[in-house]
């Protein structure tokens, strides 16, 4: 009985990963591909880790499987969030079917700020340029 549960968990997890890979190939732009990976592949990894814990029910295996699950759950959305912000700022082309772009206002504001800082630099000269660079750095880390 137990081996049936383990087998079903293993096959379901690998099928979810296959769904993520098919999504990466078929979906039209980088945001939709990210949507496919961060959810389907994480669910696949979690199911397979549950299978390995059911197969070897020991403390070490359980703790390590739980660690991997926690890392995947906590870090996958953060990484996808940062990559999505950067690709929005890079103006990566998007596919059809989008109805709104909630980051558009902020992107406009940031580009306006950067343009304003650059015009200030040119009037101040060399030392002002150095300060402007540092200011840009600070904005950068704050936004991340």
């Amino acid at each position, binding site marked *: 009985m137990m081996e049936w549960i383990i087998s079903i968990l293993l*096959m379901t997890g*690998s099928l979810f990963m296959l769904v993520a*890979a098919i999504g990466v190939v078929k979906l039209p732009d980088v945001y939709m*591909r990210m949507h496919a990976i961060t959810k389907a592949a994480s669910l696949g990894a979690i199911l*397979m880790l549950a299978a390995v814990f059911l197969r070897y029910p020991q403390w070490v295996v359980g703790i*390590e499987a739980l660690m*991997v699950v926690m890392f*995947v759950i906590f870090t996958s959305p953060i*990484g996808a969030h940062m990559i999505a912000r950067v690709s929005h*700022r890079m103006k990566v082309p998007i596919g059809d079917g989008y109805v709104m772009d909630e980051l558009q206002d902020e992107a406009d504001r940031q580009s306006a700020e950067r343009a304003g800082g650059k015009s200030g630099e040119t009037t101040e000269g060399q030392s002002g340029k150095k300060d402007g660079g540092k200011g840009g750095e600070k904005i950068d880390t704050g936004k991340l």
Partner: protein
Amino acid sequence: MTSTEAYPILNFAIYFSFATLTISLFAGLYRLLTGPSLPDRIVVMDLVASLVIGLIITYIMLTGQTVYLNVAVAIALLVFMGNIAFAKYLKRRLDQ
């Protein structure tokens, strides 16, 4: 050598999982080679990390060597660092 010969269904599931994950790796390779932009390729790195975790787990099921779970822990941590580093690098390249 294998610890699964007593359970045919488990044996089938393990080889099915190997085949599925290998197909998924080739799909990721396709997107890595033809991805139009740099974020596409970075996203594929995330997918490949998940697939390698799956392959490690399947290998654990095949051989019974549970120490390889340490590799899965290390990969799950490293890919997060790689994502953050790539995002910072792209953002710095944009600001210049």
